[in-house]
């Protein structure tokens, strides 16, 4: 039997909602999968698609992006801008052959510690089922290979 694949997931979250939600999950002693590395940012409006590409470049198997529910943005409309951006970026990734299941978007408020724990568990399981992002890792490996011709 091969060992259970442990996916590496990077989460880009906004500090006012999802990060606070993650905090709540922690203080409530909720247990969730340890596969996620959280990176806190001021707002989902600050989450550039570059971050997602960088995460993949560094070997992530999946990326989670999460912030305040519409209407709750600390900066009034950062998340509305982010939503449009993701809509387009997601379809671009899909067209390029990166499964939408690998790049996930969610709204989690500061009060939704339970939703955060559940989501992390679901996302981890989903990506575990997909397996390592071998196709992308192949690209990364090729950068380390010596010249062939």
């Amino acid at each position, binding site marked *: 039997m091969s060992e259970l694949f442990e996916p590496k997931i990077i989460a880009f979250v906004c500090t006012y909602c999802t990060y606070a939600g993650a905090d709540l999950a922690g203080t409530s002693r909720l247990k969730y999968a340890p596969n996620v590395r959280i990176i806190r940012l001021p707002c989902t409006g600050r989450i550039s*698609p*570059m971050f997602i*590409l*960088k995460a993949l*470049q560094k070997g992530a198997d999946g990326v989670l992006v999460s912030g305040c529910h*519409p*209407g709750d943005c600390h900066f009034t*409309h950062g998340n*509305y*801008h982010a*939503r*449009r*951006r*993701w*809509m*387009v*970026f*997601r*379809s*671009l*990734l*899909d*067209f*390029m*052959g*990166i*499964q*939408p299941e690998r790049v*996930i*978007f*969610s*709204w989690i408020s500061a009060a939704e510690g339970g939703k955060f724990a559940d*989501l992390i568990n679901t996302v981890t399981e989903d990506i575990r089922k997909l397996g390592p992002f071998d*196709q992308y890792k192949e*690209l*990364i490996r*090729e*950068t380390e290979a010596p010249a062939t011709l």
Partner: protein
Amino acid sequence: MITQEKYRSKAKKLLAEGSVKMVIGYSPGSTPDRRRPVFIRSFDEADQLVLDSNCIANLSGYLVSEGLLSDEKHVAIFLRPDGIRSINILAAESQLNVDQIIIFGFDTNGNEVRALTGEHAGEFSEFIGSIKEHPPEKSRDPLLYQIEQMNPQERFAFWKDEFSRCIKCYACRQACPMCYCRRCIVDSNQPQWINTSSHTLGNFEWNVVRAFHLAGRCVGCGNCDRACPVNIPLRLINSRMAEEVLDSFDHFAGLNPAQEPVLASFKKDDSETFIL
């Protein structure tokens, strides 16, 4: 020929009376079917201008050349409908003042060339709106259907193969009127977001970033696709993105000079079915 003569004499008139400092148009190229951009600054030079169905390049990118419009003088330019849309976007993104631009609008149908009515960007809005409502009978690229039929792994492999040819000459970027950044994201190295080397990962990242930055801004003029020396089908990605913004946000890039850029605006009821 009639259109060519019409615009030649118009160019001469405008240059003679000093109402424009330059006319940007097409002149004969190095082979009979090639046309090259030309910058006409005097009455006598205007006879170099040609206009026929080989005039396909979108010239609007020259308008944002450093210093060209900073003296607030007028410039005339030959533009097809897609070029006029480019001008609208550049204006909407505060890159130029449309009042300075005199448009010599034209469209081609087979070998026929006809002049478009209007002289300033705003006067074409209705015409561009009609293109949005009734897209030309040009069928969607069959390759797009093929790509959509593939599963993600096949699609990834398809693009990996296409991008493996990329040599990172950045001709796609330089040929694009929308790529006006003085410092492109790939040229900045603090931080270095994507690999600058032309290996498959660097090529893949570059092409994804390029496509994203053009989403909702590309007018499909085809400059990038024609410029690519290794013939990567860049038009496919751009047109897929244009479809996406049209379907999701009813956004048709370059409708008029006041149109809000699609990714710098939002509606409270934008679709969010994909957000958990």
